[in-house]
């Protein structure tokens, strides 16, 4: 086991995440009781809600590290923001995918402009904007500053989006299955435990992925640095 782990470069922390995921799968798919109204499809909630938590948490991290980046101008904080944005985006995509899968049998429709889903949709769009600026602004000198500005404004925006989407639907009473009140009301203790474990494991997984992603970015910087040095000594010797 340890040998395989070493060969796959799985750190002890990674191993914990892996075991945690297995535990989450067991708790949510087998151990937790079947929801009376929605049936087994409700089990997707354990992943959906945990992902939504990470998506939001990651964006706050983007915002906080962006502030520190503008303040200290150290590349590492830009790396934190970038990594958090990429990983947060993946989780946000997961929210956008699991939402409709859950919604179809429950609401009879893939998509509904329920406040939580609408919130996730807008958050997802801000992530997309962030990553687009990162990719298409690659050749701009100030792109890191711009990204930090977007990260900060996006984070400040989160409460506004939250209230706007909530009140927006609030004026037209719709099913509130996926709001927090709706969730808490019908949940048994075992369900809450499964959701709690899932949220903790997803958080650990997020930090594990952060570590890997940041290491990757540092390696890229290092490779770039080496390339630059070789290029300087032997102009034209390294193809771009």
């Amino acid at each position, binding site marked *: 086991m340890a040998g395989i782990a070493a060969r796959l470069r799985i750190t002890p922390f990674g191993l914990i995440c892996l075991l945690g995921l297995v535990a989450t799968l067991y708790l949510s798919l087998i151990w937790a009781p079947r929801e009376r109204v929605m049936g087994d499809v409700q089990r997707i909630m354990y992943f959906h809600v945990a992902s939504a938590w990470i998506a939001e948490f990651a964006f706050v991290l983007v915002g906080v590290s962006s502030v520190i980046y503008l303040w200290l101008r150290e590349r590492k904080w830009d790396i934190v923001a970038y990594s958090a944005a990429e990983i947060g985006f993946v989780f946000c995509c997961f929210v956008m995918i699991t939402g409709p899968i859950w919604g179809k049998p429950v609401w009879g429709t893939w998509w509904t402009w329920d406040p939580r889903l609408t919130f996730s949709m807008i958050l997802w769009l801000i992530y997309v904007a962030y990553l687009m600026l990162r990719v298409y602004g*690659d050749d701009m000198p100030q792109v890191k500053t711009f990204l930090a500005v977007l990260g900060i404004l996006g984070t400040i925006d989160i409460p506004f989006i939250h209230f706007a989407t909530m009140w927006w639907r609030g004026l037209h009473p719709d099913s509130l299955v996926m709001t927090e009140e709706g969730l808490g009301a019908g949940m048994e203790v075992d369900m809450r435990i499964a959701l709690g474990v899932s949220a903790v494991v997803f958080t650990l997984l997020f930090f594990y992925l952060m570590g890997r992603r940041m290491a990757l970015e540092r390696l890229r910087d290092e490779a770039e640095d080496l390339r630059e040095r070789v290029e300087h000594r032997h102009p034209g010797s390294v193809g771009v």
Partner: protein
Amino acid sequence: MGDRSAPGISIRQLTKTYGRFRALHRVDMEVAPGSFLALFGPNGAGKSTLLGVIAGLVRPSRGQVLLDGDEITGDRDESLGERIGVLSYQTYLYDELTVRENMRFYGKLYGIKNGEERIEALLRTVGMDARAGSPVRTLSRGMRQRVALARALLHDPDVLLLDEPYSGLDQDALVMLKTILTARNKTILLVTHDLARGLESADRVAILNRGRLVFEAGTRDLSRVDFEQAYRDHAV
């Protein structure tokens, strides 16, 4: 404003990277108070970036620029603009406004006292007083460059940064520019491709290549032939 003496500029370990591109790499340079330094180098050598850093437009990645011993590369100090004048191939003039309106606008931004008189005097100096009421859009390239010169001198800066200032200037204007530049009460940095013209007016010359300072010398004992040879050796 004008009663301040021309400051010395110290550039220390100045590095600026644009993503993967290293525009300036550990440049060290001293410009003595009131002296005239001409900076040469091929395209992309980092000349304009260097001027940009001194002007406060570009934030260096590492290193410092000191003006009379005070660091100007840290947090932006608004008053830096009062000491620095920039004349570049870009005129910073608005096409839709008249010459006088452009000057007045910048006069207000720079907080010039008795601006009207100063503007008229400067426009006379650069020979543009007759066209003061014309929209900049109707002026020729050379005329715009003359107005740009007046604009750069509007707040009587102690430091003049010139980035290819000769572009579009006719013979008269060149003579006039030279007269202004030789009235030495300013520290001057000139970036140009024109080796002969740069060598002629400057006290010192320097060559930048690929972001590094590769050559520096005084002009007193430097013949044009020697310098052209040096340029070929270091920059081509």
